[in-house]
């Protein structure tokens, strides 16, 4: 596209009063876009018409608009998909965060500093406009819309039916001989309608019938997925018979060190007899997206020796009790132990959730139904019965023979011809010894992903989801903000594999997962990102001639988008990609970039900042800001007219993971005094939208600190700080504290060279 530029500098919202508009127009001209126009309010109909006229009459196709934050008026300043609009933020991040005049700083000085700040933002915007290109979406050669649902339980049945009802062909794979999963073993189900107190007859048979009778759904029972290769829209799935091995089983990830050991005979090859992960299975079927509904397995609770599971007769788990209840009459006196008690008395059993509370209530009702004088004791630390299930709880509590108390169960032992449950800290305000015929332990629901890869991807980063150990075996992407996502694009988990949940929740969950799979396929079809940069048509492009096969990009990509060949050259899969740019940040050769976001563009923007080399008061800082949380926080600070240090220049980045260290070198070599990264919290309760970006960036910053030291620069000149989106009242202080630290160090010694 031949670019024709038009620069527009808005005087509205106090900009015109605070700044010298002529100076800004001049700054744009110096950056290569002369004749910038000004207007009292470009967001007004007249203002927009002015721009539109230039587009229509003069052929302007690249609009540089220096006004409010790019986060606002996005629709007003959208001039069409074939036009580029670059926004310079001189309102929230310049005029609205000006200092108040004081003894230390006069109004004139403040105005001077703010003018320089806004001029730099104008220069950066012009530079960005020069360096950016219109993205061209990546299109798969052939796209398959078929959806693969793994697991034929309640979740899988629902997902298959919902996807089919939405008009997509589905293949439902079940390892066992028949569909239905865990629900086949249930005697009764939780209530699903008012008054929410009566148990209901199982509905799984009807769900199975609806699926097997649906012409859009292909059911494969006694079948497993050996491996899934490819990328969303073009997945290659190899099937095998259930509970067998196949040469197409997804190979385990082998690190370079492990490969050395294997080669030297120090370790058995875990992938012996398996096809390499990049090998193409000619028998593989094509799919567009995957719903993973492989469910859960009952937790083993025999580790709690004082409760006697495995040693005492008639101490059973809730899953075992359900089997007994399904088979016939249950005993008359039963204690339901919801928490292990002992020394960790407030903890529930691992992998418990509200569903295990409700199961205890349901099974207590079996005791009452089967025995006119039945007594069911529920000993809990927590009862969780969300939503309408509170009515279920009340109904069970109202039963003459169901007895509930918070209790710390200390021991279960044999006695009086049955079992005796000892409990302390009860609501009855004394220790209890309850004689029962049977004790039922509320064993949790362990996701299948804890024990096996489940998803069986033939990806470079291995067959399973990543960092499972951080989340007790649950697949995670960003639980708070994007609960359905996994760290594998196009793969959506639902049901017991995602969370211990009941049937009603599972049905909702599976419906959502089916819709997410559809969304992934349709986004792949349009060549745009799914999440969180939904609709982004850019994608990373590689200049392979200069690739040194260092493998940083393939290792660091949080979403496993990059496979590689034997030599280690990356093989991009754009439909797996979330467009965070972590690969771009990782690449030491700087050969990865997006059309509208690349090394040269940001580097040039950094260099476009004017660094005075003769004024010790006018230090310059560049701050790379995560556009997901930190950038909105800074905008909000401006909207609240909080003061922001006028020595810093903010540059939004897609994710701190995309920050290439060369930009920091660019900044320091152009005489800037410090570089700061503002991004999301990382670690256990990370907030990074791309999971690993801020964590990787922090590691890189530690490393670059070392490099600076070797050059004789203080490592303190570069830093990284956490900013949450709610930190708008703190972000000004965080920035000032960093600036003050550098001011104390003095200017960059290389300034002026």
């Amino acid at each position, binding site marked *: 596209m031949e670019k024709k530029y038009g620069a527009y500098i808005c005087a509205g919202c106090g900009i015109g009063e605070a700044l010298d508009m002529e100076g800004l127009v001049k700054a744009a001209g110096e950056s290569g876009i002369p004749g910038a126009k000004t207007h009292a309010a470009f967001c007004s109909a007249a203002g927009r018409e002015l721009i539109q006229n230039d587009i229509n009459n003069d052929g302007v196709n690249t609009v540089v608009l220096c006004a409010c934050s790019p986060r606002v008026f996005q629709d007003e300043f959208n001039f069409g998909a074939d036009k580029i609009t670059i926004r310079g933020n001189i309102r929230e991040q310049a005029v609205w965060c000006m200092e108040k005049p004081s003894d230390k700083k006069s109004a004139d000085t403040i105005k001077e500093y703010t003018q320089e700040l806004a001029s730099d933002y104008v220069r950066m915007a012009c530079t960005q406009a020069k360096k950016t290109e219109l993205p061209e979406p990546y299109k798969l050669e052939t796209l398959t819309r078929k959806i693969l649902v793994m697991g034929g339980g309640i979740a899988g049945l629902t997902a298959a039916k919902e996807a089919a009802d939405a008009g997509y062909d589905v293949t439902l794979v079940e390892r066992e001989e028949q569909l239905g999963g865990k629900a086949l073993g249930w005697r009764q189900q939780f209530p699903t309608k008012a008054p929410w107190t009566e148990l209901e007859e199982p509905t799984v048979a009807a769900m199975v019938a609806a699926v097997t009778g649906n012409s859009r759904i292909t059911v494969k029972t006694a079948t497993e997925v050996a491996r899934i290769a490819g990328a969303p829209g073009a997945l290659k799935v190899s099937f095998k018979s259930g509970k067998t091995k196949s040469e197409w089983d997804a190979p385990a990830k082998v690190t370079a060190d492990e490969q050395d050991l294997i080669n030297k005979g120090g370790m058995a090859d875990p992938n012996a007899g398996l096809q390499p992960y990049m090998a193409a299975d000619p028998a593989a079927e094509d799919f567009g997206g995957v719903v993973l509904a492989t469910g859960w397995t009952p937790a083993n609770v025999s580790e709690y020796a004082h409760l006697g599971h495995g040693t005492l007769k008639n101490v059973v788990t809730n899953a075992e009790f359900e089997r007994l209840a399904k088979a016939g009459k249950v005993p008359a006196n039963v204690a339901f132990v919801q928490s292990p008690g002992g020394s960790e008395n407030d903890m529930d059993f691992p992998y418990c959730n509200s569903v295990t509370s409700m199961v205890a209530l349901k099974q207590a009702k079996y005791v009452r139904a089967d025995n006119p004088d039945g*007594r069911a004791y529920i000993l809990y630390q927590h009862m969780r019965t969300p939503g309408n299930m509170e009515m279920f709880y009340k109904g069970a509590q109202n039963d003459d*023979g169901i007895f509930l108390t918070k209790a710390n169960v200390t021991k279960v032992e044999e006695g009086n011809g049955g079992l005796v449950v000892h409990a302390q800290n009860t609501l*009855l305000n*004394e*220790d209890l*010894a309850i004689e029962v015929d049977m004790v039922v332990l509320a064993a949790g629901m362990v996701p299948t992903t804890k024990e096996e890869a489940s998803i069986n991807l033939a990806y470079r980063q291995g067959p399973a989801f990543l960092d499972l150990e951080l989340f007790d075996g649950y697949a995670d992407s960003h639980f708070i903000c994007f609960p359905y996502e996994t760290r594998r694009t196009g793969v959506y988990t639902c049901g017991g594999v995602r969370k211990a949940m009941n049937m009603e929740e599972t049905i909702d969950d599976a419906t959502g997962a089916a819709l997410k799979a559809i969304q992934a396929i349709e986004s792949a079809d349009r060549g745009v990102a799914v999440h969180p940069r939904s609709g982004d048509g850019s994608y990373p492009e590689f200049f392979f001639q200069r690739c040194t096969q260092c493998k940083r990009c393939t290792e660091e990509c949080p979403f496993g988008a990059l496979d590689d060949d034997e030599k280690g050259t990356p093989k991009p899969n754009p439909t797996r990609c979330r467009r965070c740019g972590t690969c771009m940040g990782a690449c030491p050769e700087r050969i990865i970039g997006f059309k509208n976001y690349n090394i040269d563009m940001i580097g040039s923007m950094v260099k476009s900042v004017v660094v005075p080399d003769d004024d010790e008061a006018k230090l310059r800082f560049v701050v790379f800001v995560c556009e997901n949380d930190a950038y909105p926080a800074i905008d909000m600070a401006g909207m609240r007219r909080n003061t922001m240090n006028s020595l810093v220049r903010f540059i939004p980045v897609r994710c701190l993971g995309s920050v290439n260290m060369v930009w920091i070198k660019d900044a320091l070599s152009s005489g800037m005094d410090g570089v700061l990264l503002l991004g999301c919290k990382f670690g256990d309760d990370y907030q990074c939208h791309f999971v690993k970006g801020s964590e990787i960036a922090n590691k890189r910053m530690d490393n670059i600190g070392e490099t600076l030291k070797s050059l004789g620069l203080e490592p303190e000149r570069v830093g990284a700080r956490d900013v949450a989106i709610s930190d708008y009242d703190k972000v000004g202080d965080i920035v000032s504290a960093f600036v003050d630290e550098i001011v104390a160090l003095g200017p960059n010694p290389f300034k002026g060279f």
Partner: protein
Amino acid sequence: MAEGMRVKPDLEFIRFMKKAGGDSLKKCYQCATCSVVCPLSADKKPFPRKEMIWAQWGLKDRLVADPDVMLCHQCGDCTTYCPRGAKPGDVLGAIRAYAYTHFGFPQGLARLASDGKNLPLLVAMPALIIAFMWYLSGGMHLPEAGTAVDFGRFFGHWDWPWLTKNVFFIDIIFVPAFFFSLFAAFKGGSSMWKAMAAGLGANSGFRPSASQFATEFLLPAVVEIVQHKRFKDCGTNYDRIKGHLPLLLSFIGLFAVTGYSFMRKDVISLFVSKELAHVLHGPIPLSDPFKLLANISAIALIVGIGILWANRMRMQDEQKVSATFYDWFLIVEIMAVGVTGLMAEVSRLIDVAPLAYLFYYMHLVSVFMLFIYMPYTKFAHLVYRTVAMAFERYRESSFVKQA
């Protein structure tokens, strides 16, 4: 390992409770709002929260020996503020009903009087006894024409001047009934005292003597009852005092009148001249201060029970209490005593013999019922609550505290 309380919930007890007005007991989820609003609740004694869970768990032995249950005046604050509609006030009422049956002597009669199903029998028995005695006495006919209605000749007449036939029959019916009821009340009250004392755990060698018991525990309790101090702590149901106090005072008044009448007709008349005995045996003149007291008391009784009746109806309408046989039996019974007594007197004064005799008969039946069922019905609170209030003083006294 430390042995906890062996628990085996009594399902029968829970079923009884649900029938006797405590149908909401299982709703309690132990939030303790009731204990915060209850004027009886103490720091370490979350009343009635702990009673609610004991009831839910069917721990009847704890509940019947719990003085607090008897000390509760059912002001209804707990029920009003309960966020879950568990109606602790009603549950406590049901526990008391159960306790009266539990401690009742003899058990057969106690059980009989605890269940609304037996109502026909409960009315029929006294009605037949009085009718049989009436028949036996030979007085079962209307007075001859020209003679004024004279309840002094209800059970007939003989010529022995010092004790009339009527007084004799009244005495052989009501004196045994009175002493039977007194004995049954004593048996029940002392069983409860023992159960409560066992619950204290501390058993010192010191026991209060009978006179210490009377002066240090019982008498102050009675004084407090008459003063209606506890009713004044009631929040939501404060109006009840307007009914209960006149009712209580009317009972005291009528008790005094009955005592006076007994002395006059059955005792003093034995030792005076024939002529004077004849006067003493006649109707007490309306000008007699005791007759005045009797009439005032009768009206106070009807007004008092009327207020309580209306009060309970209102509370029922507002769904603050449930309608139970236990509550309504006593209210209707007292109302019956008052109304039949007053109607008998009025029809005597206006000299309508058939009505007068019918009401008088009904009056005798209702009073008899009041006596013999007193230890088992809600009326038993007169015994058990008094005992509990005495016990409350006892457990704070040096007899217990020093042990």
